[in-house]
């Protein structure tokens, strides 16, 4: 596709004349105007470039960590639209809204355009040379033990370079932090299956019981799971898969379930054990020790503890016994408690009893280059960094790909502890909450200007290395990619090794071509291999399947009794991870702000979801501004009343409430991260996201909620608009 890098670079140049200004004039320009505009023309061009026809370049999405293959439509040197790469096995040409908004991260008017050095309250623009020199001076002036690198998920050559840099510094302090990652589930999976993230085959399952895993919305690899879901719902056999979602607050996945079971918060493990007991009673063969361990979980008791009716437990057990294989998924609703690990273990045990391991829970492949395998993050990492900062153990801090000042609960006092670090370097796209605390801000390339390789945590088939390549010329000459910055820093430390590389591109190309045999390019010469890899957006690698080995011991499995009531803070707070906002890093992309939340259809604000019963008890109606107060803090937002939530629970979406970052994010909604209580999972030490207890009071004001429920306010007025049938009335196998 791309003959040589010279042509390519030339092509990616923005042809500034005509282009954007022409598009904007729109209907304003109504006459034939000679000699006003410039014609798009090139100095040199390649055959595949035809003006007015888009050219597509493959790359890898950077909006979340799922690593979908994307295809940028480029015209006249500008990237116009991101589409899915049909050859990518994760997303097969499909995309989510979040991914598509990546183009707005690239063209965002609030991007930082040059390195900024703190001077009092202001950031002063400095050169990269000075910035990197300063960093080198600072890291040279402290004990390596006192240098810390905080990042989001890293993989590929960025990770390898980062490790080399840390080695060169002599410090191993790399904290990988993800604010909303399924980190307890990963630990539980490791115990139960021997791997942190097994491959889930939704498409093979006949019944899926998901304990709060929002796999259609924001969980692990939603675009991939959505495609599997489509095949699960409409397999060739015509036997439609049944989805049961168990959670206290309805997620997008819950909204698509055949049966949504509102469960008392934290009792997911009890229900899982109750189901095992019911299955044993229904004649499923269950090992003796397990049967003994779950014997006490009778339908009556489980129903009383969980709030799920005995009838539903019975029906669900019958369905699971009758239709095999099934798939049980533990998600964030199950893991978010102090006993999250136990919940997850109980759910994994249910999978084992049903014989799903090896059927719908498959072994992933290992990555042949472990130094490039993804390092997933957790909340414990931030906790330990925070403790070290509090004890003045951190002298130089780097932060990349996270926004801890925004996502850390107020009780951590992270912002105060950050002040104890004498030199803070933040790699950032925007002046977000963390960047404004920095001493040195390094502006990053957008994902549409950057070179990188990515190995996603969840790979659909085999092992693969995705490539991220520039889709157009850099908008601002003053930004750099992580790879280039690390390379620049390494040149100070290990000049012999790295001075030979002009830039990260040449490093990457060299590293890939040198290892081409292991990257599936043994039969090709270096150039052909590299061009093919770019053209495909990645390479397939040969990975060994990892054996599923673990086991949950029923005898050690203890699931605690349900919560006791708290008179002062009677409600449970569920901080919701929405498909668009996630942890808030994409909040400055206006398409996402204006894209309605699927369930509430609310735009441009936070809200507090509550059940009509709860609202009635508190005298709240839709639009009331309410105060949500926990032991750790309080926030205000508009109340939204609906029946997709347990009456003991209220829910607030995460990602809103920025007080920095940019024009589209700042001041929109309230930040629910701040009021989370410091309660931790007992086994992993992870912050238990669903453990916060709150009280809700009216704050006096009432607003009209800005939402988009359709012209009749979400009411069908008795018309046949959105219609629902029971599945046994339809013959799906006859459908086209």
């Amino acid at each position: 596709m791309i003959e040589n890098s010279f042509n390519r670079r030339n092509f990616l140049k923005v042809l500034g004349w005509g282009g954007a200004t022409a598009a904007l004039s729109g209907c304003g320009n109504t006459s034939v105007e000679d000699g006003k505009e410039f014609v798009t023309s090139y100095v040199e061009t390649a055959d595949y470039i035809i003006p007015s026809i888009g050219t597509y370049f493959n790359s890898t999405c950077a909006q979340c960590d799922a690593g979908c293959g994307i295809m940028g439509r480029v015209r006249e040197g500008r990237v116009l639209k991101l589409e899915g790469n049909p050859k990518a096995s994760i997303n097969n040409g499909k995309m989510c809204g979040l991914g598509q908004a990546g183009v707005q991260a690239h063209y965002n008017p609030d991007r930082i355009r040059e390195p900024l050095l703190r001077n009092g309250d202001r950031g002063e623009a400095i050169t990269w040379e000075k910035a990197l020199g300063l960093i080198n001076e600072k890291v040279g002036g402290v004990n390596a033990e006192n240098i810390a690198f905080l990042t989001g998920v890293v993989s590929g050559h960025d990770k390898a370079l980062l490790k080399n840099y840390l080695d060169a510094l002599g410090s191993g302090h790399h904290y990988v932090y993800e604010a909303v990652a399924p980190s307890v589930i990963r630990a539980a999976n490791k115990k139960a299956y021997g791997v942190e993230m097994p491959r889930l085959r939704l498409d093979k399952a006949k019944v899926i019981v998901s304990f709060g895993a929002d796999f259609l919305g924001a969980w692990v690899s939603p675009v991939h799971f959505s495609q599997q879901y489509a095949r699960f719902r409409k397999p060739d056999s015509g036997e439609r898969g049944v989805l049961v979602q168990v959670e206290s607050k309805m997620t997008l996945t819950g909204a698509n379930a055949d049966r949504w079971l509102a469960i008392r918060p934290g009792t997911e493990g009890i229900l899982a054990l109750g189901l095992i007991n019911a299955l044993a009673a229904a004649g499923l063969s269950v090992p003796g020790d397990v049967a003994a361990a779950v014997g006490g979980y009778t339908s009556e008791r489980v129903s009383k503890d969980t709030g799920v009716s005995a009838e539903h437990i019975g029906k669900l057990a019958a369905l699971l016994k009758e239709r095999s294989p099934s798939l049980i998924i533990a998600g964030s609703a199950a893991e978010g408690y102090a006993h999250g690990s136990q919940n997850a273990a109980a759910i994994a045990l249910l999978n084992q009893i049903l014989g799903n391991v090896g059927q719908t829970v498959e072994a992933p492949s290992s990555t042949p280059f472990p130094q490039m395998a993804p390092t997933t993050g957790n909340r414990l990492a931030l906790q330990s960094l925070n403790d070290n900062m509090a004890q003045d153990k951190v002298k130089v801090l780097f932060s990349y790909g996270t926004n801890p000042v925004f996502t850390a609960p107020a009780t951590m006092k992270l912002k105060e502890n950050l002040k104890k670090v004498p030199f803070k370097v933040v790699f950032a796209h925007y002046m977000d909450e963390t960047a404004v605390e920095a001493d040195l801000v390094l502006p990053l390339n957008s994902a549409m200007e950057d070179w990188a390789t990515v190995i996603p945590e969840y790979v659909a088939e085999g092992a693969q290395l995705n490539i991220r390549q520039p889709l157009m010329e850099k908008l601002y000459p003053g930004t750099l990619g992580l790879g280039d910055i690390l390379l620049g820093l390494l040149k100070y430390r290990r000049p012999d090794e790295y001075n030979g590389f002009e830039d990260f591109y040449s490093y990457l190309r060299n590293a890939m071509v040198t290892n081409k045999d292991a990257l599936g390019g043994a039969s090709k010469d270096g150039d052909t291999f590299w061009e093919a890899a770019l053209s495909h957006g990645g390479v397939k690698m040969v990975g060994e399947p990892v054996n599923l080995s673990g086991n949950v011991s029923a005898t050690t499995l203890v699931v605690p009794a349900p919560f006791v009531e708290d008179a002062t803070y009677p409600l449970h707070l569920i901080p919701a991870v929405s498909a668009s906002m996630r942890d808030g890093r994409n909040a400055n992309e206006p398409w996402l702000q204006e894209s309605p939340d699927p369930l509430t259809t609310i735009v441009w604000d936070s809200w507090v979801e509550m059940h009509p019963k709860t609202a009635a008890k508190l005298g709240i109606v839709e639009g009331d501004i309410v105060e949500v107060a926990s032991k750790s803090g309080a926030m205000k937002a508009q109340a939204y009343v609906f029946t997709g939530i347990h009456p003991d629970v209220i829910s607030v979406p995460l990602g809103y409430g920025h007080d920095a970052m940019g024009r589209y994010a700042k001041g929109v909604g309230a930040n629910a991260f701040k009021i989370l209580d410091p309660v931790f999972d007992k086994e992993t030490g992870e912050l238990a996201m669903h453990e916060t207890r709150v009280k809700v009071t009216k704050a006096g004001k009432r607003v009209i909620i800005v939402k988009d429920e359709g012209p009749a306010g979400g009411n069908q007025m008795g018309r046949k608009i959105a219609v629902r049938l029971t599945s046994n009335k339809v013959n799906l196998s006859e459908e086209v």
Partner: protein
Amino acid sequence: MNYFLRLSVLLVGLVVSAGSYAANTVQPLTTADDLGPKVEQPFEFPHNRHAGNADKGGMEINCMYCHTYARRSMVAGIPPVQKCIGCHQSIESVRETPRIKKLFEYWEAKKAIPWKKVHDLPEFVRFNHERHIQRFVFAQNKPVQEACGYCHGDVKTMTVARRQKPLSMGWCVSCHQKDHPVDATSTKTTHGPNDCWQCHK
């Protein structure tokens, strides 16, 4: 556009159209010229020298040799500097003339030449060069210069191209309403598309 202006245009339009509807005759393909303004270009490109007839000192180069995209894209395109140089690097006789020197200056600086648009349609119009060329040149076997000339006038006699036809909607439609043979041999005729969305975007 100003809202009130729009409304008055509508009213005038209705009156005019009522009149023209009464006298409903197919208008002949207008050949009336509507000469556009002279357009200042970075340097004067002599179309007559390149495309003009040999007896007038022209090279009779096919329009599509340089405007290579016309047959495969919406836009005809301006050739890349590379293309000019392709020939001119081996034409020593004019190498030192002012225009060619300027051309080489752009080439050596690796800068595209900032040509101005001469035939500039409004942004809401989708005019497809490819379809017209395919139809008239490739299906009907019309000479290239004649086919291009329907809209661009007699470019081979111009130095810097200058608009010769009105390029207004009515002018487009006048041709679209006429019956044209579908190809060089057939007696079957058809007219151009007349739905708004064919051209308006």
